[in-house]
Structures are given as structure tokens and as C-alpha cells.
């Protein structure tokens, strides 16, 4: 069992990239992308931190004139937006993208180009947000951007538009990363890594990825409502026309509270990786810990109303959410007690990463306790919108995100760079950060009790707030110095730090099996896993094997191609060889065009109208099969006994990356439409007459006929899949064309129906939601039509064969989804007004 030098140099060539600017721009390797996320996130963190310092200077003295109200509003909004959307979530995704393949024992994420695309989208939207500061158009409505303050009547500038478009782009980037993380964890684990051997960090990240899939689309929908209200006079949040500003809060906080857990669950995952290493024993309570991530993930979607206790909801309704807010302390507590038990039974090794873990425990518990306090409705009403809340969430987020992250960077820095971080300067930075943080934020609890409201740019003298505010400002600079020392340590060690061995901390998890820094291909031989801490409890992570063959050799991995092993979801049994795409400029081009499309919404819709077809063209180019992809030998070949490639595995009933990618795209689309339908019922439940005003309930006959035309499309799609399985590619192409024509017929009916309506999106809230759901579905059908057209083209060109069905199956999945999604939407729009219309009230 050895890997020859030839094989290693071939792997290096295969997985490497040219050391040029174009090579840099076209990189898709998970380590390159992950590192870029981390560095970019740290830059945004520093910018947001500077914004915080400027605010602290302003608040140091009463009636200070260092900043005016407008500048302060922009700074506190940018601080929140940057910390939430540009730092906390993306940097944790970056850590995950860097570490996941290393921890799972694979060579890359399953969608490397998508991974790169997500990063560029994130970067462009972050630059857009911060650039707007220099033009005085930075968002200024708070990171939560409440309607109706954010409506054009009260915020007429571009500030809110920039918030809505940039945040929507960031959501796209987060969703891309989430799909990437889930698919990689599901099907790219090393052989033997059953679900009960998955590292806790990975558990945390996967739960976060699922949360992103369910939490982010509602915010995209809310942002769409807001932009439509601002740009084309819809009435989603206009109470005078049947809208409801509280709808914004529901949609925002359905995203916003899970967002808090999305930020700190990865922190808990990092802590779960550090603690065993520095306690010199396996973590205590692996199963409860993994489960606590799952439970937190579910419960986080049942607590959003606790942000709305002051909005006049029914007390009993609020109390159900109050209960969930209390109960979530249990799985959070499990994390802390498991950590303490592991310390108790372990042999502690006091190094800087462990200090940050101790800092995390102290601060996070403090934040958790105040969290339980504000889960109580009467208490929450007392401290609502005061500095007590500011203190609470900084204790939770800095405790749950920043301290684990700083500890994690310290822990993995040797792996990433091959150099150790300085210990003395590391300890100094920890203590300054820890002390500075507590001195800055603890007094805010007291200020809150003293009645100081948050988001005020100044205050009058004589209220008793002066001393504490000045103290906090000084302490904030202590915190800043601590963080500055940390960054200086990073730079200094990167240049001249002592060399690190492959496993300098003696850790037990797989990433430490690689060289420091890891090679482009991560593992010369894909490992086999038989334990939670394979480096501690296995003589070797290579297979017990009579024939002395590595998994690479046994399953036919060719070092000359970007291939890695795909395994089953629960038991990690090897099933396929996944061929990974190589470097490409397409991701950055696609991200740039997406940016153009979104930014057009702010400045001129013509730009967006140009951007949409451009985007379609770019995605078309993205999906053109490579010349090698046409070669049957390339997609089906391999040594005897080798696993099938992912391109043909689909025909054997194995779920391929394409299957998973399409499944999650469909899931995201479904969540978007579910958010739209829920908004429809929410708006309906708040008015007596529905449809509002003089609008009659919609005609059912034409929409029903149009819908039947769409649904009949299921028949040719079914026939297409069947033809493909039989190797009848002409039948496949014809069936896809038939489905396309039926979908186009549906579009025709839809245009006819909408053109004949005597109301539009600007008539009232009913018109707004009715038109939006119809147009959104219209767009969804257009996407399906485009996919069917491309698939039919490739079917006629002979690309799809009996074995190579992957793309055709994925298109069929989307076509089916389009039909299925329309069923509840049709019932919602066309039948419920008769069942629950104005006559019922």
C-alpha cells in the first residue's frame, strides 16, 4: 500500500492550477475558495469593527457632534449588516468550505465551480454595500430594515434599495454554499464514515446548511416585496391598501432568528473540535451533542415571534413561542455541560485555542442566561429596544461566533499555512479581547435597565448614562487593541512563524492526516474510517486489506483525472467515482452578470432586463458538456472492478451530485413559493373582504384549462425518462419538446388570463400578491422551458445514452417540480377566495 512519486506528481498536476492572475481568478479548489471567504470575512469584520468604534466615540459624551444622525444611522446599519451578512455567516461558511473535505476524507466539494460562484457573489455584494458608504447611500434602516420605515414614503433614497439587492445576493451566495455543504457531506464522505462517525463540526455545519435552505428564501421574498413596494407601487406593507407591515417582521424574523443559530452553531462545532484535542480525550456525549445541533436547528424555526413580543400579537400565541425560546436553552446547555465534563475527565493542555474556548463558555453562558430572561414576555417588554438587548446579543454572538472563530483560526492556522502562531502574543491578544469585550458590553445591561434606548445617535446630559458610556468607549478600544494584536500575530506568523508539523496538536480527526499545508488533492490516498477519532484509535486509516490496495486503486480512481469517491448517505459505502470539474472563469463571469442584474434593480431596470438573458447565456455555457464528456470511454471506462462514474451512476439507481444539486434547488424554489403562499394567507386573514375592494373572485375556467395543459406535461416528462432508460434518445428529445410545448401553452393561457384582468399589482394588496405569485410561477415555468430546450437539444445530438442519463433526469425532476408546485398555488389563488371569501365574513 504505497503511493508512488509518479502518482503523487500526477495528482499534483491534476488538482493544481496555473500560478497566474487568470489561474487565481479561475480557481475552484475548496481550500482556495474557503481561504478567500475567511480573509474577505475578516476584512469586512475589521470594517464593521471600525464602524462600531466610530459609534462608540459618538456615544462617549452626551450631545456629541462627532457624527450626525444620518451618518450614525448608516454606520449602525452597516455595522449590523456587515457583521451578520458579510462576516459571521460567510466566514463560518468559509471555514466549513476549507475544512469539510479535509474532515470528510475527500478531495474537494462536490460542486467546485458553484463553490467559486458563491464566493464571487458574496464578494461583489459586500463591495457594493461598503462602496455605498462613500456615496452617502449606505443602508440606514437598521440591519432588520423594518417596514413601513423602509418604504419609499419614509426612505426615498437608494439606501434601502441597496440593502435589499445586496442582501438578496448574499442570500444567493449563502444558499449556494449550503447546497454545496449538504451534498458534500451526504455523498463525499470517506468510506466507513457512517453517520455516527461524522465529526461534530460537520454535524454543526450540515445543520446550519439545512437552516440556510429554509431560512434564507423567506428573506429573499420579503426583500422582493419591499423592492416591489418601492419601485412599482405594490402594497404588501401598505395597511391603507390591505397590506400589513407586520408581514415584514414575520418574514424577516422567520429568517432572522434562525440566522442567530446559523451564526453560532458552527462556533459550537469549532469548539467541539478543539476541546477533545486539548483535553486529550474524546468528547463526552457525542450523540447528545450531535442531537443538540439537530434540536437547536428545529427549535430555531419556532422562536421567531419572540422578536415581535412588542407588536401586539395575541398573548397565548406569543406564549407558545416563549416556551420554545425557553426550551432551546436545553440543547444549548448540553453543549456547555458536555464541554465541562470533557474538561473534568480530560488532561487539559492550556494553549491559546483552549483559552478562547474558555472565553466562549463564559461569555456564551452569560448571553444564554440573558436570553432565557428575555424569553419571558413581561421581562422582554420592559427591556425591549434598550441597551440590555444590545448587551444580550453581543454576548451571544461574540461569545458564540467570535471567540470560537478566533480559537479555531489559532487551532487550524498550522494546518492551513504550515506555520505556528506566536504563543505569547496569542495569549496577550486573548486576554485583551476577553477583558475588553466584557468591559464594553457588560455595562450595557445596566444602561438598558437605566432606560437607554438602542439606535440613538446621542443623548441628553443628566440622565445618568454619561459615565458608563464613556467607560464603554474606552473599553471598546481595549477590545480593538486585543483584536489588532491577534491580526498582527497572524501576519507575523505567516511571514516568520516556526514551521508546523502535520499534526502539531496531536489531534484525532482526519484533516490532521494531510500535510501542512494540505496538498491540492488533500489525500494522496482516500482514507477509510472506522472511528470517530481515526488518528487516535486506528493504527492506520488505510484499509485492512488482503490485497494491499488503496481505495483509490480498488475503486479505479485515476490520478490523472479530478476524481474522488462518492459514498452512500447513511453508511458511507463507496458507490461512484465523482468526476470533478476543473478550473474555470465561468463562476466569476456568472457572478458578475448576476451582480449586474441585481444592481440594475437599484439604478435602472433596463440593466436588469439586459442582465437576465445574459445570465441565461452564461449558465448555458456553464452547462455545456466538456469535449471529454462526450467520450463514452471517459464516462464509463476504468479498470476492472472500478466504481461507475457519477455520469453513469444515475442509471444504476445511485444518487449522483446532479441529483442532489437539483433536489436542493427544487427544495429552495419550494420554500420560496411556500413563503409566497403563506404571505397570501396572512394578508387574506387581516381584511374582511377578499379579494379586496371591488375586485371579483378570479375566474376559474381559463386558469384551470391552462393549468391542465401544464399538468398534462407530466406525461411526456414521464415518457422522456422512460425513453432515456431504454436508450431511445430521439424519443427522449421529442418527449422533452412535447413537455416544453405544453409548458409554453400554459404560459400562453397565463398571458391571456393576466391581460384580461381588470386589476393589477398596484391596485391593492390582493392585486400585489395575486400578480406576484402568478408572475413568479410564470418565471419558474420559463426556467423549466429553457432546461427542457437545452436537454432536448443534447438528446438529439446523442449526448444522453442509456447509461448517461444524469442531466436528463435532473431536468425531468425540475419539470415535475414545476407542475407539482403549481397545484397548491392554483388552489390558493383560484379556489380559496370562493371557500374563504368575503361572504364567509
Amino acid at each position, binding site marked *: 500500500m504505497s503511493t508512488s512519486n509518479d502518482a503523487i506528481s500526477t495528482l499534483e498536476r491534476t488538482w493544481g492550477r496555473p500560478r497566474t492572475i487568470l489561474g487565481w481568478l479561475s480557481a475552484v479548489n475548496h481550500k482556495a475558495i474557503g481561504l478567500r471567504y475567511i480573509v474577505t470575512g475578516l476584512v469586512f469584520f475589521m470594517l464593521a469593527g471600525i464602524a462600531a468604534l466610530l459609534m462608540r466615540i459618538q456615544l462617549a459624551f452626551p450631545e456629541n457632534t462627532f457624527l450626525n444622525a444620518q451618518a450614525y444611522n448608516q454606520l449602525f446599519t452597516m455595522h449590523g449588516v456587515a457583521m451578520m451578512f458579510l462576516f459571521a455567516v460567510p466566514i463560518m461558511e468559509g471555514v466549513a468550505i476549507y475544512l469539510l473535505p479535509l474532515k470528510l476524507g475527500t478531495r474537494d466539494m462536490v460542486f467546485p465551480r458553484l463553490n467559486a460562484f458563491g464566493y464571487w457573489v458574496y464578494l461583489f455584494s459586500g463591495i457594493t454595500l461598503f462602496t455605498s458608504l462613500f456615496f452617502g447611500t449606505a443602508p440606514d434602516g437598521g440591519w432588520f430594515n423594518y417596514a413601513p420605515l423602509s418604504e419609499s414614503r419614509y426612505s426615498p433614497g437608494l439606501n434601502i434599495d441597496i440593502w435589499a439587492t445586496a442582501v438578496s445576493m448574499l442570500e444567493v451566495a449563502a444558499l449556494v454554499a449550503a447546497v454545496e455543504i449538504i451534498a458534500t457531506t451526504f455523498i463525499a464522505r470517506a468510506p466507513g464514515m457512517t453517520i455516527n462517525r461524522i465529526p461534530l463540526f460537520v454535524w454543526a455545519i450540515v445543520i446550519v446548511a439545512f437552516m440556510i435552505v429554509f431560512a434564507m428564501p423567506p428573506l429573499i421574498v420579503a426583500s422582493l416585496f419591499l423592492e416591489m413596494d418601492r419601485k412599482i407601487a405594490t402594497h404588501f406593507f401598505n395597511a391603507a391598501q390591505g397590506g400589513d407591515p407586520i408581514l415584514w417582521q414575520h418574514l424577516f424574523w422567520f429568517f432572522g432568528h434562525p440566522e442567530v443559530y446559523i451564526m453560532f452553531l458552527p462556533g459550537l462545532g469549532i469548539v467541539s473540535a478543539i476541546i477533545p484535542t486539548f483535553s486529550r480525550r474524546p468528547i463526552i456525549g457525542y450523540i447528545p451533542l450531535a442531537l443538540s445541533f439537530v434540536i437547536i436547528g428545529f427549535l430555531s424555526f419556532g422562536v421567531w415571534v419572540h422578536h415581535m413580543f412588542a407588536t401586539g400579537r395575541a*398573548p397565548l400565541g406569543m406564549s407558545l413561542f416563549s416556551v420554545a425560546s425557553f426550551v432551546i436553552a436545553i440543547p444549548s446547555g448540553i453543549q456547555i455541560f458536555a464541554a465541562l465534563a470533557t474538561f473534568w475527565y480530560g488532561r487539559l493542555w492550556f494553549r491559546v485555542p483552549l483559552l478562547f474556548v474558555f472565553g466562549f463558555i463564559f461569555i456564551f453562558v452569560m448571553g444564554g442566561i440573558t436570553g432565557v430572561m428575555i424569553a419571558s414576555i413581561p421581562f422582554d417588554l420592559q427591556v425591549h429596544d434598550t441597551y440590555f438587548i444590545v448587551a444580550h446579543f453581543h454576548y451571544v454572538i461574540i461569545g458564540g461566533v467570535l471567540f470560537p472563530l478566533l480559537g479555531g483560526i489559532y487551532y487550524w492556522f498550522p494546518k492551513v499555512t504550515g506555520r505556528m502562531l506566536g504563543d505569547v502574543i496569542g495569549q496577550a491578544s486573548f486576554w485583551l479581547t476577553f477583558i475588553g469585550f466584557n468591559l464594553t458590553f457588560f455595562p450595557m445591561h445596566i444602561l438598558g435597565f437605566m432606560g437607554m434606548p438602542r439606535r440613538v445617535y446621542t443623548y441628553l446630559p443628566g440622565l445618568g448614562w454619561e459615565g458608563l458610556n464613556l467607560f464603554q468607549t474606552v473599553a471598546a478600544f481595549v477590545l480593538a487593541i486585543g483584536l489588532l494584536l491577534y491580526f498582527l500575530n497572524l501576519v507575523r506568523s505567516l511571514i516568520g512563524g516556526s514551521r508546523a508539523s502535520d499534526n502539531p496538536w496531536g489531534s484525532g480527526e482526519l484533516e490532521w492526516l494531510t500535510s501542512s499545508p494540505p496538498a491540492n488533492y488533500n489525500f494522496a490516498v482516500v482514507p477509510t474510517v472506522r472511528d470517530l477519532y481515526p488518528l487516535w484509535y486506528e493504527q492506520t486509516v488505510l484499509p485492512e486489506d488482503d490485497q494491499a490496495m488503496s481505495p483509490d486503486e480498488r475503486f479505479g480512481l485515476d490520478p490523472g483525472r479530478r476524481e474522488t469517491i462518492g459514498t452512500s448517505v447513511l453508511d458511507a459505502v463507496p458507490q461512484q467515482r465523482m468526476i470533478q470539474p476543473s478550473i474555470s472563469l465561468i463562476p466569476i463571469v456568472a457572478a458578475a452578470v448576476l451582480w449586474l442584474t441585481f444592481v440594475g434593480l437599484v439604478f435602472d431596470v433596463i440593466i436588469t432586463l439586459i442582465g437576465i438573458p445574459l445570465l441565461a447565456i452564461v449558465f448555458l455555457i456553464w452547462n455545456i458538456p466538456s469535449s471529454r464528456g462526450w467520450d463514452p470511454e471517459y464516462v464509463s471506462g476504468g479498470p476492472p472492478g472500478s466504481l461507475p462514474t457519477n455520469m453513469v451512476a444515475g442509471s444504476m439507481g445511485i444518487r449522483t451530485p446532479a441529483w442532489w444539486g437539483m433536489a436542493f434547488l427544487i427544495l429552495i424554489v419550494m420554500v420560496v413559493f411556500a413563503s409566497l403562499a403563506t404571505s397570501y394567507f396572512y394578508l387574506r386573514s387581516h381584511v374582511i373582504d377578499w379579494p379586496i375592494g371591488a375586485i371579483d373572485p378570479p375566474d376559474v375556467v381559463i386558469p384551470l384549462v391552462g393549468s391542465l395543459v401544464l399538468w398534462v406535461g407530466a406525461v411526456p416528462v414521464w415518457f422522456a425518462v422512460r425513453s432515456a432508460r431504454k436508450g431511445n434518445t430521439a424519443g427522449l428529445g421529442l418527449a422533452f419538446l412535447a413537455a416544453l410545448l405544453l409548458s409554453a401553452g400554459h404560459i400562453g393561457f397565463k398571458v391571456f388570463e393576466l391581460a384580461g384582468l381588470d386589476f393589477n399589482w398596484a391596485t391593492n394588496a390582493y392585486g400585489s400578491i395575486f400578480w406576484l405569485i402568478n408572475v413568479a410561477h410564470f418565471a419558474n415555468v420559463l426556467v423549466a422551458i429553457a432546461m427542457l430546450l437545452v436537454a432536448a437539444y443534447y438528446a438529439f445530438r446523442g449526448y444522453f445514452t442509456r447509461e448517461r442519463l444524469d442531466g436528463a433526469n435532473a431536468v425531468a425532476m425540475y419539470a415535475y417540480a414545476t407542475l407539482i408546485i403549481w397545484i397548491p398555488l392554483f388552489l390558493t389563488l383560484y379556489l380559496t377566495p370562493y371557500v374563504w371569501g368575503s361572504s364567509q365574513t
Partner: protein
Amino acid sequence: MTEDRRERQQPEPVGRFALWFALAAPVVIWVVFLNVGYVLIGMECYWSIFPFSAWGLSGLRLVLIGMTVLSAVGIILASIIGLANWRAVGGERGPQRDPTGRYRFMVIAGLILSGIFFLQLVWSSVHIILTDLC
């Protein structure tokens, strides 16, 4: 790999439906309970959709109590199935390389989920009886 092959050759110690029901039912039940309950409360306060009462309890409270009881029955059922599953795999002992460790993991997961969501339900029921409606 030999170990993976062994895993695949083992007969499944727990039925697939029983395994997934015990795992997923508590969560699904709680999600439905919370969201339907919240919507019904909001609609009652806006529209008075339950214009009846019995035993001194308003219509909405009766409906919510009924929902709580049904949800509790569902979670208890999931727990019973989970316990049966646990007995089926309970003879297993660590370490991690246990051939059916994955089942054991999923069974324990189901039991913990049942426990936490049952607790949630009990706590909610106290509010349903005692807290003001609107």
C-alpha cells in the same frame, strides 16, 4: 471496505418505517402543533372562529387542548416505537466501530427528540390553560 461490506450484509435490526417514524414524528408533530396553534389563535382573536364554549373553557382553548392531547399521543407513540427499537439494538455496546452503531445512533436520536418535544408540549399546555387568549 471489508467492514462496509459486513455492514451491508447485516440484516436490518430495526424496520425502516419504525426507525424513521420514531425519529421524525416528534419534530413534525411539534412543527404542526406550533404553527397551526399560532394561526388559530391569531384568527380567533381577529375573527372569532370558534364561537362555542364548554366546561367554562372557550372554543379555542378546547380546540388547542384537543390538539395538545393528539400531539402528545403522537409523540408518546413515537417514544414507544423508539423504545422498541432501542430494545432491538440495545444489546450493542460501543466502541464506534460497532457494526450496527448507525442504527443505535438513530434510535437514541429519536428518543431524545421525543423527550424534548414532549417537554415542549407539556409546557405549552400550561400556557394553553392559564394564559390570556387575545
